[in-house]
């Protein structure tokens, strides 16, 4: 059996950023910001031009998701994580801007991990392909910016017991490496 999930508030407190360790199973409650490929590209382009972002990222946790359309009367459609590595090019800049957490799936680049350690940020994984289950933990969703991007728009989501796992903590420990090493068999 695995330990029961840690109940964690989002945005993350400074204490939680330091306390969370690779391998911790968490249930997140509070507010998340969402964004994926197209929104990341636009955000970094704005910052490079010295302009303001439509959303203040300071202290926020971003979830990489492009939900399926909500049915009438529903808060959201299915909403599982997308592959994080496509955001790697942009993440160090956004971490410097104040992100304290990211949620996605898959590997991160060394540059992202270095930025996480320097600015204190945690990378969490949600279960890819568990999109209908994850949608149940999303209680409210509204578009904050760039509605023209459709599924890729920036949203604010209120979540309750959103299931995630700490993959890389603010000290750079990486569950992908630890877990794989443990179950690897050599012929």
């Amino acid at each position, binding site marked *: 059996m695995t330990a029961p999930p840690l109940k964690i508030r989002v945005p993350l407190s400074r204490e939680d950023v330091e306390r969370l360790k690779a*391998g911790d199973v968490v249930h997140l409650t509070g507010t998340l910001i969402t964004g994926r490929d197209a929104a990341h590209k636009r955000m970094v382009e704005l910052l490079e031009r010295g302009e303001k972002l439509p959303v203040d990222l300071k202290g926020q946790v971003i979830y990489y998701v492009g939900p399926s359309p909500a049915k009438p009367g529903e808060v959201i459609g*299915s909403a*599982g994580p*997308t592959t994080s590595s496509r955001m790697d090019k942009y993440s160090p800049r956004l971490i410097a801007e104040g992100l304290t957490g990211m949620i996605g799936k898959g590997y991160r680049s060394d540059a992202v991990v270095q930025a996480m350690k320097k600015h204190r940020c945690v990378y969490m994984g949600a279960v890819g*392909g568990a999109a209908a*289950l994850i949608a149940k933990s999303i209680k409210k969703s509204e578009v904050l910016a760039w509605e023209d991007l459709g599924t890729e728009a920036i949203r604010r989501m209120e979540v309750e017991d959103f299931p995630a796992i700490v993959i890389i903590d603010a000290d750079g420990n990486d569950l992908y490496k630890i*877990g*794989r090493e443990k*179950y*690897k068999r050599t012929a």
Partner: protein
Amino acid sequence: MAIREIEAGKITEAVRKMVIEANTDIGEDILGAFEKAKQTEESPLALSIIDQIEENAGIAAREKMPYCQDTGFACFLVEVGQEAHITGAGLEDAINEGVRRGYKEGYLRASILNDPIERKNTKDNTPAHIHMEMVPGDRIHIKFSAKGGGSENMSQLKMLKPSDGLEGVKEFVVKVASEAGPNACPPLIVCVGIGGTFDRSAFLAKKGIFREAGKPNPNPFYADLEQELLRKINDLGIGPQGLGGRTTALAVHVEVFPCHIASLPVAVNIQCHAHRHREVTL
């Protein structure tokens, strides 16, 4: 054999229905593979991930919600009997219309862009990716698979040297699965195409996404190769979602074709656990 007429509207309706079903109701093949994986999985965290994925499958089927928000590139493998005559519209148009209707009515995500560089969403998930083959008979057999982008991105192709041989093939397939790691949403279905030309090997690999998970290649030699590759991939320790474990892949599907004396092409099309496929004969 006499020509048999098939109304295009019937094709559209069959496609509309199958894209919704495949995206919301994951097949018995995958559910069976999860149950089997739980018998051999050693990691408690991995077991809890499989439980979450199974719970997700139940919610998706009951509430007619997409199993994954990435409802995929609509891929079709169509076998057209040479005695079949389609009336009322073109076959490709009829399929695309079914995709358009199904993705809208099923509240499935539109993920297709008009152009790889301009990148504007077409908003109805068309065009579909359609591969047609002419076969004997007067029927049309349509296979559909919703192919997610995350796993597709971890696919690779290599033109091996004939001297690399079977060992070279095995090494490459395991390397691709290893590099896919957590990005491709394991547990995976690893679809392998060996032989043919550069493009044919990729198509052979792609055929694997239409196959019932774990159904062996009819040739015993390649059925054994599938099992050997599956063992080797699961020995990588990647596990469900890459968090460590014994279940990195649920199945390996191998397809082969004759090839040139100078060539040994190998393609690996990575499929995630959202192995969403249906087929229908009209």
